[in-house]
């Protein structure tokens, strides 16, 4: 199990950041990812694995409007 923005999400071996985004249907382009407070560059979303128990912050950047 991991948490994403405070909500639990089932963890699977080999799960990448992109898998997390797909599972949460986070399609917004301006999104920042922090795993256990460590930022992940966007070009590494598909290759960065999320460890079991991780605290993931998926921050949608635009303050909008």
């Amino acid at each position, binding site marked *: 199990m991991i948490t994403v923005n405070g909500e639990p999400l089932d963890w699977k071996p080999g799960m990448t950041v992109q898998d997390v985004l797909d599972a949460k249907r986070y399609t*917004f*382009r301006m999104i920042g990812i922090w795993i256990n407070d460590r930022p992940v560059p966007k070009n590494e979303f598909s290759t960065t694995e999320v460890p079991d128990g991780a605290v993931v912050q998926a921050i*949608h*950047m635009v303050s909008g409007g």
Partner: protein
Amino acid sequence: MEKMKVIAEWTYTPAPIERGYTRKTLYVNVGEPRMEIKDVSQDMIDTFTGGRGFDLKLLWDAVKDTTKWNDPENEIVLSGGPLCGITQYPGAGKCYAAFISPLSGQTYDSNSGGYWGPLSKFSGFDAVEVQGKAEKDIILFINGDEGKIQILESNLKDLNAYAVTETLHEYFAVDEADKRNISVISTGKAAETSYYGCMNMSFYDPRRKVARLKQAGRGGGGSIMRDKKIAAMVVKFSKIGGNLNNVVDLDTLQRVGVKLHKEIHDLDDVQCKMRKVGTAHLNEIMDEYHLLPTNNYKFGQNAAEISKIHSAVYERLFTQGMPDGCWYGCSMSCAKAVDGFTVQTGPCKGEKVTVDGPEYETVAALGSNIGVYDPLWTIEANFYADHYGMDTISLGTAIAFVCECYELGLITKKDTNGLELNFGSKDDIMELIHRMADGKDEFASMVAKGIRYMKKAFAEKFKADAKTMEAIGMEGQGVETSEYVPKESIAQWGGYYLTLKGPQHDEAWLIFMDMVNKQLPTFEDKAEALHYFPNFRTWFSLVGLCKLPWNDVEPANNRIVNEPKEAAKVPEHVQNYVDIFNAVTGKGIRKEDLITMSEKVYNFQRVFQVRMKQGEANHNIPLRALGPVFPDEWEARREYYDGKLREIGIDPSALSTEEKIKKLQEYRLGMWEGLKMAVYKRRGWNKKGIPTVETLKRLGIDYPDVVAVVEKYSKPEDNFD
């Protein structure tokens, strides 16, 4: 066009601009007629900065406590601000308008791109205030080249915006190239009956060879123009250059500007795609997150139809590869247009036109929110809204309300004078829009006056159920809600309905931070955001900048070097603003000062609202903004909403859908009250939302007449402990 008769004429010597200011404002009374040039004091600069701040200060001095929107003393005040007109940094052509709004009866501020802001400053004025009522249709002309102000008797045959703008660019220019030195403010025929008449501010597009229209759309400025019998306001200035603001530090301005230009060039295609599709990049994103208003905000998503209004569809419709900045030097270039559009209905049927937009708000307002998923129809509705002089947001939200009333049987085909106004009834909705411009149809004229007016009129005239209309009429303070579904973000309830002027997204858009990112878990967190972001965004309106280059592009390392909460503020861009403000004005502000500068004006405007509403400047929220009102809304996301009940300790399994709705509404109304008190307290206001005298003193806006308003309407029992 025949030469227009001069009703009044004055000459003046345009004041030089130093460090972004001319230190002069222009006053014109179109009724008397009379002209006066006023000095700008150092105190006015220190307190109000410019732009919207100057507008509000001048408006405060011009009106009485009892002034209504259509009284002669109401004004339209227009100002750019000290950074307005710089060409080195993107988004520096904004003009801000303020007036007493016909929708709300209190001040409204509305902004537009186009060239009016820069050209009026280059013509010698930090602000232009227009008061009085003319007897015949007139045109106000500011000739910055010759130092001449004229009031001309209009001989325009068509008062609708595209016709007015095209004619006047032609009339006042000596040749094709000269058209670019002119900006026209126009509205249209619908503004004569509507309370949400818009002001279109033009710039001439030399590649397309057409005048383009940007809108200070919201709040009813166009309605006031027509009430004053102003057909148009025109400014002309021909010697446009790169440093007309006479800035203190041009090198810094250029350096910071180049940095942002490069950022936009390198990153926009992988971020928001503003250069290709403008704000319409949001269409499918809002749908994905249940934020796209659908059928009067009943739903936030329409999975079956969204592909028809996807941004990729609009990308194909917008002309690509054109520099679409609405002021010199704006590489964000988001003023997209549809060229060669053949109009299908109404007085322009068969004509090929260039249509500005639609932007995201219009795609939603005159699209999903009224059940229409036909981009060509939306483009035509956008064209006519601008042409007739109506705000697309209020128009769409008002029609959405009408459609729901019609489907609920609160109003009938007889009441609508034969129109079938179901969601998606696009032919009859287009006919309704034409009738609004015509001004003769009583029902159309009701719709043109907005939701607050309709709620009362439908109840009185058609015996429609007032309680239902209160629940579904998406207005706050008399102003129609803009195009985001706020139901599931408590912070956005405040972002919309605890604002100065009503639910417009230019104060605070906190939905992602709150609802998705979960960065604002407590009332105090939300209140802090509802202090910081409205004040930060206010700053743009003081200096003449567009908000979009702040966070619709971000530095590549923004999410690497900043922790999550700070990253949302885009700290590097905030520093850019500090640097360019100091580079223009020579002041030495720090980033913390941006908020303080704004707080002065923000609190002054709040006191202004209290003054105009005689102490009753209340913040209302419709039930629809808090959550589902009818069972179909709940059932569309049953799992989600049942979960929301469980989160607050209510087992939904034994409840009917109606009971569940009632429980959630009761809970959320309590949350709304809690939010309101937390926000008022954080802003330094009392429990009635009135700034305290201590707040006025802290900000240095404790002028005797401002303090007098606060003291008149504040009671000791309303103070926080």
